[in-house]
């Protein structure tokens, strides 16, 4: 492997890490300063999905893995944030659904 390729790969990993740090600090800022409206909940869940995809594709290196392995991991970060957002935005409906 030549130095150019190695440098590019190191740079991609470092960039992914920096983006993840920035997104985390952004979430912390939201936690400290904004009341969680539906828009904020959706934005935070979107950030979770982006962070998940970055870790799975870049840091975990599943970008070129078999579709089943990558797809199952990505599904976790596409489905769960949606369910969390729905649970947080519509708690009354969830309460009714889960009352025996």
């Amino acid at each position, binding site marked *: 492997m030549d130095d150019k390729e190695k440098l590019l790969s190191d740079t991609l990993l470092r960039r992914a890490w920096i983006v993840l740090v920035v997104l985390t600090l952004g979430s912390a800022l939201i*936690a400290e300063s904004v009341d969680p409206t539906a828009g904020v909940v959706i934005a935070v869940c979107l950030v979770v999905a982006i962070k998940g995809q970055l870790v799975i594709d870049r840091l975990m290196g599943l970008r*070129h893995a078999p579709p089943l392995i990558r797809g199952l991991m990505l599904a976790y970060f596409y489905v769960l944030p949606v369910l969390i957002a729905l649970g947080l935005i519509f708690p009354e409906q969830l309460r009714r659904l889960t009352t025996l």
Partner: protein
Amino acid sequence: MSRIEKPGADAVTAMLATDSKPTLEPASRQTPANIAVWVLIWAEVTEFALFFMAFLVVRSHNPELFAEGPTKLNTWAGVINTLLLLSSSYCVARAMAAIRIRKVNRCLRWLGATIGCGLGYCAVKVWEYQWNHASGFDSRTDIFYSLYYYLTLNHLLHVLVGMCAIGWAGLRTYWGHFTPDEHEGLEGAACYWHMIDLVWIIIFPLLYVMR
């Protein structure tokens, strides 16, 4: 004990035979690590997903407690731990990149940094629990704190297991068990560690950010 930093004769032969070269990226379309590791990872993330669903259901039945609870948590402890886990994932990714080009010493340094981040996470968690205790909160304060302690302690246990796995993979790297072509054990430990980070990516907003 000096360790090999350049490809050995057998590795060069293998490279020529397959017309390939060492790469920082995992080989395309190959399952990283053993399939058993992926079954374990999927069992673990499913377990946490069920916890998250239970958290949402309990939250919907106790809106006041769950609106008030996160405001009393130490958000900065959550932020620092998120940064530590993301950094540890970066370190383990660099360790994997190093072993793929037979840079054993570099790989060991990055694995050491991964364990360092894990130790930092544990230290922050202890500080956070002490801070909670000093503020008058424990697992029996209310249902929010019961779930908070259950989720975070469970995750902490996974971090400790992950540190043991990375430590063992580091020892095997030091003993020369891994090469650019054969490093499945290290890859398995790395994938498990990334899983721990992925779960925390959801725990952090659920407990500390959303009120």
